[in-house]
């Protein structure tokens, strides 16, 4: 348990790091496509954490299964997201999120 515990913590730290990089990227970038990718990164980090944790909780495959679902759903989400981005691009000829400012108080 202790060895696994150590390995586990590495991977959780790694997952946390990737998640944080994704979140920071989401914050600082204005390119909608890059922001989408940052969300993908964050989801990857989630998968990493799930699979890592599954090594501690060896009773079942819940972590692995969860990761399966995340992968598939992330792809679906990406598809919808890109469709929206394309629609946005057709109207604004830009993929900068700063251009989204028609709605004001």
């Amino acid at each position: 348990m202790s060895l696994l515990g150590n390995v586990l913590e590495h991977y959780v730290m790694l997952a946390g790091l990737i998640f944080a990089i994704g979140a920071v990227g989401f914050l600082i970038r204005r390119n909608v496509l890059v922001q989408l990718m940052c969300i993908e990164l964050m989801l990857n980090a989630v998968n990493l954490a799930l699979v890592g944790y599954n090594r501690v909780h060896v009773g079942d495959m819940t972590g692995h299964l969860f990761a399966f679902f995340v992968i598939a759903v992330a792809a679906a989400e990406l598809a919808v997201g890109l469709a929206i981005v394309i629609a946005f691009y057709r109207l604004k000829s830009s993929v900068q999120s700063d251009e989204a400012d028609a709605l004001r108080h």
Partner: protein
Amino acid sequence: MNLLFPLSPLLVTGFGALLLMLTEAFGTPRVRAAAGEEVVDAGAGRSGELALGAAVVLLAGAVLSVAVWLAGPAASPELKLLEPWLVFDGVALFMSFVLCLGGAFTALLAGGYLPEHQIDRGEFFPLLILATLGAQVLSASGDLLMLFVGLETMSLAVYAMIGLRRGSARAVEAALKYFLLGSFAAALMLFGGALLYGATGHTDLRGIGQAVASIGQPESTVNAGLVLLGLTLNLVGLAFKVSAVPFHMWTPDAYEGAPTPTTTFMAVAVKTAAFAILMRLLLTSFGDERAMSWGAGWPPVLALLAIVTMTVANLIAGRQESVKRMLAYSSIAHAGYVLIGLVATMRSPIEGQASVMVYLLTYTVSTAGAFGALILCGSRGAEAVSYDDLAGIGRRHPAAALVFTLFLLSLAGMPPTAGFFGKLYIFRAAIDSELYWLTVLGLLNSLVAAYYYLRVIVSMYFREPAPGAPVATPMRSGLVTGALVLAAFLVLAIGLAPATPLAMALGSLTGG
């Protein structure tokens, strides 16, 4: 295995969505193509039929939810087979009823709105039903995995429903903002879920609950820090979905930019489902004495959110020039009231939960009605949006103004409408939990809120349009009228016989 009947609310919506999708795909378009234009959408021009179909499906879902509720979930032991993934208990059935009702309102409103504003797109209706299905699953899920699946089904469909309006920069912008922030919130929730799984070894809410309850005991191996992180991230994600301040910023933009029926759906069903799962998550997984205590648990966080949400939303709502945007802020404020009910579960779990359930029901009928009335007051090219657009409606279209007034009074919590009892139950539960100052703040806020709801009434009855200003002519649509009549009936019926929903909510909780 007799699962068909108890699961029928879900099955009806699921199959209804497929059926409608096929009808939409293989039907012949009713719109004749103009020269040089290809009709690409087979469902174009048939919104009326599709809307009616969708409304029938969703109303059937609502009726079946009540039927199963009446039969009693306990009467179908087979439902236990679905646990812990889907917990189809009394609360879930009650929520399923509210969600289907909200979906049906949306369908009827869309049936009138989409053709009127030339967004006559058939995909809206299968998407709507799928979103409702996702919401039902979300509110009934007993496992983080199912929660995620339900959440995504609902959200993906809603993203598309927002961006549906052809060539409208505002609609696409609304979709983009909601999508990006929504996916971000979903990622946060997922990471929170992963941490909870890591800390407890469970993804089912009850298992998490048992592990969390063991924190502090000597033999416990559960890492409290991870649990806390996981809970907070999940709270943030759901706070986003219910649009609690400060996670609300997308709401006014998305609500304003989206086609009004979609706005209705977001305000009604998405919020209800998110609150349902928030309540389930908190009470199942974090319902032990320590996690529910004022000193070491989530109640103070939610109380803070409630106060900030109500106050900020009500203060900003009063300044809006667009009625649609005002209603968006009002829906944020209502989230604050519901949060009070959630905090009240701290000391009186049964009353607190029942008050939240009843509130969501009354909020659904009033909000759907208010948006519906706003739809009715506008017509092609002249959507009623601002206060000025509504000036003089009281004279030009007395019936529309009357029902609008009714819904606004209900939102303001004026007796004897449904909204009043929603608020009453919430505040009662809060007082039962000795949350006096929270109640006082809630009451003060509802006073501030009454001010801007009245402003609409004043515009409709006491004001005439400025000479020369474009006048919004009310549209004619049997479907919208039907939705409004149904909503008005429910607002009054709940207002006059408020005991029934309360008894249902209490019965759902006590198994009676």
